């Protein structure tokens, strides 16, 4: 499509989105935010006008560099590709519209691996490549490792879904440069618990198949912690820990089946979930019991019908390409269509998160520039992002004072549909868990805080249910 057209579309759809998301996504928060104009869009328009004219003064000529730090090798490569896809998508859209205050965006990618490798990658981005911001889904371990260094290096980093409870509560309680465009990892187990409590009131025996590292262990721990509150009758009967990137889950599945649980929680993701699901089908896990997948959705485009049967409950973090419903929320429709044009894939939540993160960054710069007339430093930009809002294909986002993007979390039960090569969520089952029941209240803006006590540990908070 031509530049003009796309720009107009984007603006139109985005504007329409404000109406759309209310109905479609139904992210619940205060009317005050509802009234607020969608800043992302407003700025896009203004830039559109200035773009043609000479670049505004006081703005550096050189392009803005975005460093994507994620996996581009190994079994999790799909994750890195999703992040890169989202960044490239955002960059192209912004560049078409004249860039950020006339500065074009340039996307770099660097492979990460283990925590120490990742730390090095990040440091190199800042010290050598002189990037302006970084983004990427790094996994919990890496996130925990690099967060302190990001604060030291004074360069914004937009995490997707990699931030563990440990990071939020211990390593970096008052972040300035760290942003979490996805929800904290602690949110998902909570959502899983709420789904189980709601959908399987009669269940008593819970089992787990979770990757053997900090994320997997936290996922199971907090799921049970929340369940003990929501449905005290449910007990964990067996927890198995396959290694990350395992190829053979048959033993774990058999062990779980032997325990005859009512519900199985699994936080296996990426390639692991694909292999697990396939073997689970063969061993009749999906027939014998109910499966709730916390993060399987990460491999969205690999979840073909022969791998994922109907009737599996799946969380989609904070974005699912069919929720907010495209027909009700044109911005999402536009987003999915465009992304499929680019990559022939359905956008995973990583794509959307990087995308909206970059728009939040753009909008912050433009706001500060409009106010002060001078191009902002990193710390100014980050402060401007905190406590701001952005319109994303997943709906309107509130960004808290500690850099958390506040989302409603979509979930649903899988079904097979002729129009889709992959297993999709049955629209009738799709629901949203509202932020105020998901996040540590400390990270919520006052209007969402519940209970009103702040500085409360997540576990303590669950204990108050």
């Amino acid at each position, binding site marked *: 499509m031509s530049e003009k057209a796309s720009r107009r579309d984007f603006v139109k759809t985005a504007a329409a989105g404000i109406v759309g998301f209310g109905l479609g996504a139904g992210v619940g928060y205060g009317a005050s935010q509802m009234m607020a104009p969608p800043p992302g869009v407003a700025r896009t328009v203004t830039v559109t006008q200035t773009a043609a004219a000479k670049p505004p003064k006081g703005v550096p000529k050189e392009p803005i560099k975005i460093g994507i730090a994620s996996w581009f090798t190994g079994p999790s490569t799909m994750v890195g590709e999703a992040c890169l896809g989202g960044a490239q998508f955002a960059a192209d859209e912004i560049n078409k519209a004249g860039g950020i205050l006339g500065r074009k965006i340039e996307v770099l990618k660097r492979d990460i691996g283990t925590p120490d490798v990742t730390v090095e990658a990040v*440091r190199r981005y800042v010290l050598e490549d002189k990037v302006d911001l970084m983004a990427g889904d790094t996994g919990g371990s890496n996130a925990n490792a690099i967060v302190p260094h990001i604060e030291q290096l004074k360069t914004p980093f937009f995490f997707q879904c990699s931030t563990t409870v440990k990071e939020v509560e211990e390593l970096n309680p008052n972040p300035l440069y760290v942003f979490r465009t996805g929800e904290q990892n602690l949110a998902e187990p909570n959502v899983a618990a709420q789904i189980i409590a709601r959908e399987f009131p009669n269940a008593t025996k819970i089992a787990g198949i979770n990757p*053997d590292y900090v994320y997997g262990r936290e996922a199971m721990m907090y799921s049970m912690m929340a369940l003990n509150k929501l449905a005290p009758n449910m007990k964990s009967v067996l927890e198995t820990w396959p290694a990350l990137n395992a190829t053979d889950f048959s033993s774990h599945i058999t062990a779980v089946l032997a325990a005859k649980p009512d519900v199985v929680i699994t936080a296996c993701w990426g390639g692991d979930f694909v292999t697990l699901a396939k073997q689970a089908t063969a061993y009749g896990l999906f027939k014998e019991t109910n499966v709730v997948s916390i993060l399987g959705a990460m491999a969205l485009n690999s979840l073909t019908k022969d791998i994922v049967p109907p009737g599996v409950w799946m969380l989609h973090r904070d974005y699912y390409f069919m929720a907010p419903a495209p027909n009700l929320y044109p911005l999402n429709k536009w987003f999915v269509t465009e992304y499929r044009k680019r990559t022939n894939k359905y956008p995973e939540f990583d794509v959307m998160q990087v995308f909206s993160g970059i728009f939040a960054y753009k909008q912050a710069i433009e706001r500060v520039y409009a106010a002060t007339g001078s191009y902002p430093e990193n710390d100014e930009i980050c402060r401007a992002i905190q406590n701001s809002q952005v319109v994303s294909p997943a709906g309107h986002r509130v960004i808290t004072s500690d850099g958390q993007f506040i989302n409603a979390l979509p979930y649903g039960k899988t079904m097979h549909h002729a129009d889709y090569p992959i297993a999709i969520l049955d629209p009738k089952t799709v629901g949203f868990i509202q932020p105020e029941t998901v996040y540590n209240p400390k990270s919520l803006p006052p209007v969402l805080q519940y209970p009103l006590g702040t500085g409360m540990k997540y576990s303590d908070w669950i204990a108050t249910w």
Partner: protein
Amino acid sequence: MKLYHVVALVAGLVLASLLPLILPKYYTFIFAVTMCFAIYALGYSIILGRTGLLSFGHALYLGVAAYTVAFLMRPEMGAFRIFSMELLLIIAIGTSALVGLGVGAICIRYTRIFFGLINLGFVMLWHSLLLKLYYVTGGTDGLPIYIPSLFGVTFSHEIFRTFIFYYYVLGIFAITTYIMWRIYNSPLGLALKAIRENSVRAEFVGIPIGRYRLAAYVISAIYAGIGGALWAPLNGHVSPDVSTWLTSGDVVLMNILGGMYTFTGPIVGAFIFYNLKVQIMHFTTYWSFILGISAIIFVLLFPGGVMGWVSKVMPKLVKKSYRQKA
């Protein structure tokens, strides 16, 4: 030591100490890291190049030292937290030497593939322990490493990483290199070479091969320990994957690349390996492809490694000793 050695050494040191003033910050950091690996590789060469034992698990000692440092810095240590680099270094050397002694005592009963694989076994065991003991080692997270004090002075993380620590590492690098030089030119050095060339005959001329192999093993463990202890604060974080059989492969490659039968070889190898890695990873994610290709090429075409190929006398010697003895 001959005159040109001294000249080369002095020139090298002067040049090295000027580097941070001319190089961009990032490369000062990179070179500091490189020197840590150079120490590690140099230490490894005494077991591979000198004694003729191929270990596929020396990253174990890198990891042991790095985790020792990380552990001593943990807040949980309370009053016992240590931030003095000197003290950390000494303790790290101690631990890696101890582990080296214990593991070595078992390993040196084997040679050839068995030696390589039992080392591999140990490093993987250590690796899986690091993963499992979440509350001690931080599991896959690994542990953060804070900025240590150098001779009682603490610096900001930027000065530390991109300037001052470079000189600290350089100093230790110079010392360790000199010590290794002495070892190589000592009777022990000759005895080890004899063992490499023909362990049977070595035993029949009265060299107790077992004890000397162990000695060489422990020395290499200590050097790996020093490398690891210095690398840890530079990198600022340590995670279990410092010690896997794959990372153990790196040091073997450094030695082969540089030339494992020459003294300077391992050092040169470390420099080539690490900087090549840094540069290549800059523009492609297919680093291991290039690494693999170069490994094959070197094995087939320059088995003497860069230095073996460069130097005039060595190639003959090298050619002699890498061929399998019929």
